[in-house]
């Protein structure tokens, strides 16, 4: 009885399966829904500072996330919006993660795509490092640390990679010039999520 709420949180697996007939329920099999519900529960009950994520609408396979830039980096105190789309075979395939906020970063391209090993399918004969033990929280954490520690060996944005090594002050200026806070984005008519 002590952790009764914990049992309630895992018990809904049957609910998840049952509710697939519900019209508002998205397509996608029960296992994904179950897994995402438990991930959400973990995120909510033990939140990581600077990270947050939540399903964007009644489709539980599409989430919006918010990441705060790490301190002591050019991205400090900036808020970044991301979207996560989970494939139907999640967690055996990685979620598709995109920056919605414009980011000036060596490993992020103009349309927000991210070059990060754990976001690519892993396994034998594949270059990616995704694994089923990773989860939404760890993905967001990796992205957050990627902001402070770019991988300049394989840049998507060559100029940023060069500038990162040469001139941090100029780099920061470029970052701030590119960045838009969520409120500004909404004013500019950009979407911050799905």
């Amino acid at each position, binding site marked *: 009885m002590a952790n*009764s709420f914990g049992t309630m949180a895992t018990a809904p697996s049957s609910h998840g399966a049952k509710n697939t007939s519900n019209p*508002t329920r998205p397509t996608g099999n029960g296992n994904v829904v179950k897994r995402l519900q438990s991930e*959400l529960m973990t995120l909510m009950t033990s939140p990581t500072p600077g990270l947050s994520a939540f399903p964007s609408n009644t489709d539980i396979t599409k989430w*919006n996330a918010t990441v705060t830039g790490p301190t002591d980096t050019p991205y400090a105190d900036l808020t970044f919006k991301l979207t996560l789309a989970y494939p139907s075979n999640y967690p055996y395939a990685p979620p598709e993660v995109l920056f919605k906020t414009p980011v000036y970063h060596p490993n992020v391209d103009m349309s927000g795509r991210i070059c990060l090993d754990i976001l690519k399918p892993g396994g034998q004969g594949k270059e990616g490092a995704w694994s089923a033990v990773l989860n939404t929280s760890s993905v967001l954490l990796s992205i957050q640390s990627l902001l402070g520690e770019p991988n300049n060996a394989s840049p998507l944005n060559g100029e940023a990679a060069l500038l990162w090594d040469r001139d941090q002050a100029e780099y920061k200026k470029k970052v701030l010039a590119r960045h838009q806070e969520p409120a500004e984005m909404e004013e500019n008519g950009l979407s911050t999520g799905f």
Partner: protein
Amino acid sequence: MAATAFRTHHLSRQDRIIASVFPPPNFTTPTPETTPNIGLLASPGRPFGGFNVTLPVVDDAIRFNRAWSTVTRFLSLPIHGAFEKERQHVSPDIEDAMSQLCQHPRVRDDLLAWYANETGVHFSKYVLPKLSSWELPVPRSEAHSLLAKTIGLLGEAQEYYLREPSALLEKTSDPSRDAAYQDFQIRTIEGLHVRVRQSLPLPRLQDTMASLFYQQMKDSLRENGNPELCLNRKECQCSLDVELLLLVQLHETGLGGALGERAFAQAVHSILKKAAIERRCFQVDWSEQTTVMPMLRSWIETYVTPFVNRSLAALTGNCAPKMSEMDAARFASIAVANLGRRRTAAIFDYVKSWPASTSAFLDIQEYLACMPHDKVHVCDSFIKQAKTRLLHAGASTTEILSIYANVIHSFRLLDARGVLLEKVAHPLRSYLRGRDDTVAIIAASFLADVGPDGHLINADSEEVCADISNEVANSALNAMDNEHKTLRYDDMNWVPDPIDAGPDFKASKSEDVLAYVLGLFDPEDFIKEVTTVLAQHLLQASDPEYVKEIRLVELFKSRLDATKLQAAEVMLKDVHDSVNLNKRINPAKGAHTEPPTPREIQAGIPDEGTTLQSLYTRYQGRIKPAQFHAALKLVAIKRQDLYFAKRTRLPPETPRTPIPAATTSNDRLDFRVQVLSSFFWPQMRANDFALPPDFQEREQGFRQAFARLRNQRKLHFRHALARVDMKLELEDRTIEEKDVPVWRASVINALAAPDWEADHDDSSETTAERLMSHLEMDEELVLDALAFWAAERIIYQPLPNSGHYAILERLDMDVPTPHPTSTHPTESQQRHKSQQHQDATAGPAMLSSALITSQTSLLHDNAPMFQAFIANMLRNGAAKEVGGMMGITGMLRMVLPAFTFGEAETAWLLEGMEGRGEVRRSGEAWSVV
């Protein structure tokens, strides 16, 4: 010439067009006698001319003209007077002329047409104006007189018009002419009748006649009827009648025939529709519960059909207008259908008064057998009536449920295969599903106690549906056994699937009320709710055998998915085990000197079985071995030298005098523990607090004994669920309280033994705060206990409204206080004041009985987590409204199945967050700060 002039004068343009193609007959008036054939002048000389001329020379044309003239003069009617032409003498001249004219059929026709015209003109001029009342609607009261007047007038006119032709007929003796004259007469009458029917407004005439017939039939029914006699004889002998003379007259004046038949049919139809079947003879048979339909059929056969035959004979002049068998049968079926429709119009009332109204449903059943297409009508009527009378907020759920049960019974009577039931039950079911409390009421009804007379014992009629409880009490556990009906080839009651069933119809396996009630909901929801109610019931049950509960769980297992009822099974096993456990851990010392009962022996057998010897040692000295063996055989089964308890119900025993609980507070504390498997029970109150001192020790002892017996398993005590029987000895009185929640005992115990307050100044008075800190008890419980004891007049406030309490040792010490609970001065209690006020009115009982954590407290307990979800949702998404499909409530329910609350609760959570500055609202939408 006058007639033609008269006619042409009135020709309209349209008539002129028709007249140009079909020239209208041109009738002449008879040659007046003032220009008579003067014959030949008597001439003295011989006529001039040739020889041998036959004189007088009269050719055919002249002769015809003369004859025509003579006859028409004889027959013509006066233009200026109504019926005042005196009877003319029929001279031989006329006779000759007539016989001459009648020789040629063509001429006869001409003469007939001429006479028809003559009578027509006369009729429209003198008779018709007197019938002008038909121009206006006829009031029912005047129908009879007007019809009588009309008949009289028409009869007079007819007689008048036929006077001359019949005079001719009388005169003649030649049979060939006789036939011709008769033909003339008949055709004249026919022509006159046609004219009458053309000049009167037929629909009105028909309606008037119908209403007159109806009135007469109704009156005759009332006069001839003797309902008491009919009811006693079980046969209606009320006869129908109309004035036969009237019918004959109508026929004679041309108003009978098809017109009269139609009017008569209309009247019979109306009488069968209303007056005949609304009589006392055919009322619902409430006393004998039989259908009146056979009575109705035999009445139609013996009274109505002969009456119709008789009347039609008079009305058409046809002596034996035998109705065919089929027509007679149709009368019966019309009457049955009308009676059925009448019953259907009140079907909701009949459902409501089921089973007293069985006969009404038998009637409807007969009606549907006779008119299969009216099934839809019956269903629609019921649905319509139910919608206006039942399915609204004014009807309580128990009422709807009991009507639902009645619907099931009654419509199963109408149609055993349940097609109609499916149709009518659907709106009820969907409405019931929409009510929040339905599941709870059904579950409570399953567990309610029913007395032998079918009334509920100790139950709130708002929360328990007696009908369902009765059904449960009377239902068979093995209702599902005949599941494979189609496989039984010797089933004589087998029927094919009904042809009028919907596409989703499937023959239900079990067809009693319970199946339908259980089918109302998703089994999972239902089981969840039942588990909660069962848990509460088990905790409060006084029957150590749990007979009722076992039966109920078995019932559910037979009807619902047995695997889903695991929780209920475990709960039952828990309480059973607890009984045994208590016996083993706390054997009542020295209490047993009389022989043990079989039940006691059964309870003493451990689950893992035991040998006869080891079991007997416990009862040694109380029972002889042989007796013990017999008793054991009754309650246990033997497997491989070990005895196991039978899980059967035992015959009831005479209750022993109960061991007084806690007679003297210290030595003998009757302490029983229920051990529950937490996973399978619903969440329960978890408030913890200090128990009265003796309990602590006993609890500790039990804990250790349990750990020893049950493989070191740990116990977690739920003090808030415990209940005690206690006896309070005050200075002037002794009060016994049974089944009191233990927190009240703790509070009164603390108040009674205030040694812990030695450091305070006023050792005899205590405030709620001190009790809370001393007992580590929640404020809610302390206040409840104080309110309870104050209401029982065990404690009082020495200074009114001071918030200090003391034991009221003598009743005369009491100071009248306005209200024991509404007077807490401190800040923290001010906050709870409104809430408390509710507690004081409805509170104590509610709080003490609510063992299971309520939805509200579930919400309060989990509020921080729900709020974290909301905060994250709003941070990562756009501002949202509370309601709506994509609103906060909907999203929470979707991502968090544990969130089972509504929009009001979400709003409450949001307000809490708003208070902490986490969210803000703009209009309807909420967003993070």
